[in-house]
């Protein structure tokens, strides 16, 4: 089985593909409004001064998400882009 990581574990500068959205209700709808659905490509770009939120590239736009929201987005990282779950 392929290894999925939550989006906020995607290391800066690397990218991946959304495989699963675990958020529900309003948050889920907001994500979808931005075009964030299964199969969407994302890249982690920049941390804010305090480390959270993080800015991601989604469909050509730069969107900042708090780790709370990003935790509900499971991605398949390209190559070794993510921090393995076991380290947490």
């Amino acid at each position, binding site marked *: 089985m392929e290894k999925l990581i939550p989006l906020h574990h995607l290391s800066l500068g690397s990218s991946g593909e959304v495989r699963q*959205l675990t*958020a*529900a*209700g*309003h*948050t*889920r*709808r*907001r*994500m*979808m*409004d*931005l*075009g964030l*659905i*299964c*199969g*969407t490509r994302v890249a982690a*770009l*920049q*941390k*804010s*001064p*305090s*480390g*959270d*939120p993080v*800015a991601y*590239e*989604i*469909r*050509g*736009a*730069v*969107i*900042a*998400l*708090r780790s*709370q*929201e990003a935790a509900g987005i499971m991605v398949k990282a390209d190559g070794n882009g993510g921090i393995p779950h076991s380290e947490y």
Partner: protein
Amino acid sequence: MSIKPEPGRQMIAELLKIDLNQEDFIVALAGNPNTGKSTVFNSLTGLNQHTGNWPGKTVTTARGKYVHNDKTFILVDLPGTYSLSANSVDEEIARDFICSGVPHVTVVVADATCLERNLILVLQVLEITNQVVLCVNLLDEAKRKGIQVDLPRLSEMLGIPVIGTNARDGVGLKDLKDAIDRVARKGMTLTPIVAEYGDEIEKQLRFLQPDIQKYVKNGVNSRWITLSLLEKDPGSMECGANDTFFKEALPQELTDSLYLVRQSLQQHYPDPERLHDHIVAGIVNRAEGIAKEAIFCKKADYNDLDRRIDSVLTSKIWGIPVMLTLLGMVFWITIKGANYPSQALASGFFWLEERLTHFFLYAGWPGWLHGLLVSGMYKTLAWVVSVMLPPMAIFFPLFTLLEDLGYLPRIAFNLDNYFQKACAHGKQALTMCMGFGCNAAGVIACRIIDSPRERLIAIITNNFVPCNGRFPTLIALATIFIAGGMAGHYQSLVASLSILAVIVLGVVVTLAVSWLLSKTILKGLPSSFTLELPPYRKPQLGRIIVRSIYDRTLFVLGRAVIVAAPAGMITWALANISVGELSILQHGVNYLDPFAQWLGLDGFILMAFILGLPANEIVIPILIMSYMSTGQMIELDSLQALRELFVAHGWTWLTAVCTMLFCLNHFPCGTTLLTIQKETQSLKWTGVTFLVTTATGLILCFLVAQSARLLGLA
């Protein structure tokens, strides 16, 4: 021939002050935030526009008109939204207007540098109406980034006219007007693409749509409304139809079959969220498919420069210092630059006052008339204009420049973590920025926050950001009392740093009060937060100056002048009509004084804040007039004279600090209170705002005054 429009359409039209019986065409302007929609609106209408609440920004529906091919087109600028799913007030406004049947044409403005995401909204609008024109804006930016848009192919795939523009240079606007004109006159038949949702949903749509069609209002797309009815909770017996879209209630048999259809769909999509996902995915995948065929990107790293700027402006080390430095510089330029023109205006007004007084004496008019008109009204107006106009005329363009560059969302990004800890919304930082101009505008800007709880927190705390009505007071006090002893250059530097400290304090108070509200009367956890960091844009200097002077400076100044004129007369009357030994004002002052002393203020200052409720701009002129009426007449033509007047009335540095604190933390002005009432639809929350802000000021002033006295500092 004029047909009487149906009630719902009529209502929306009346709300927007549009006369439906006229021959004019009505055009709705929709689009994602940050697509240059406002620029398209401004370029099309010029200065021929009108906004209900706050001009310049699309926080509310601005209207404007232009004439093209002998027809008048009324343009309604809708709030910028990502979707029409009505998750927020703005989305609801946009959706309701588009499907109300009022607009003859809906123009969707899209950002060429981020077209794929923008297409999602385009496809959603196309579900509601056929009469759509797509305006692909910012083509020059796209070109610079190596993004090529095949407009004819896009038009062919979407089935609607697609016009490329660079609205800020006026490029493509004529074509856009032509396309709107053709669609409005129905000179071309549009067959836009229809997003498809798979066999199961399509089958049910075909089954229900014809029946539902009979009950929906004219102009509302029945396929779209049927789809949104299918999406409702399958367990619910209610049909979910409301009178926004329907002429009359659906008959029982139709709601029954709707219920059955939902039940059967539930077999395929056990989780209602899965059904919604499926529908959204239909649109998003369609947008992706179109983007693949019509948009070509030459460089993979086209956003490289933006990323490099962001890596400084939002970095761990530089993010906050750069932000503070930028703000400090804005204040320094404002204070330094406003100094001379303020002096010049003041001496001019003072000269004219002398001439007016001579004229009154010469004409033999009574002293009380001179008092009311010259000492009361004229002097107050002269203060408001000479002290407010120069700083505003400098501050607003600078602030608009930061806004135009795309820096404000970065402030929200930098500060979000603090707001998160205060259980508030990160976009509150944006609404605070709007509050710098005018708190009423800041309160309206809170519409961008969808969660009602966090929106209320942002509304209640917006007043902790000093608006332009309070800046002059803060600047004047900081200049004469805190930086008073400094030599020339250092004076404005120290004054700027003091103002910066006041702002930082305002932010700290905002966070503390937000946190306190979240833990008490507005309990809850932070809701979802998504913030777009739009590409940095080359600012348009000409437009910045026009917009900030015309829309903001003159607007705020005009409002202040309207309030200041009668307030000046009333204050003069209060200060000069005696009851017993003392004037009415003096009675009030004496009553307030013991309490005010506890706060480090005096009765006059507290009275001035209370009389200044209609507008913060008039607090200092009221104070000056009250002091003057008790004896010393000073030729008040410089800040130095102001200092002497205040010191003569027992001011120390502590009085100045407490007055500045109370200026930052007290009840919102009348306009802001009315706006809060309008936005929250609740007297309770307006009252809460009044109490929370005032209590904060009282507590802070009390603590500072008492500690300073206890420590023997004052």
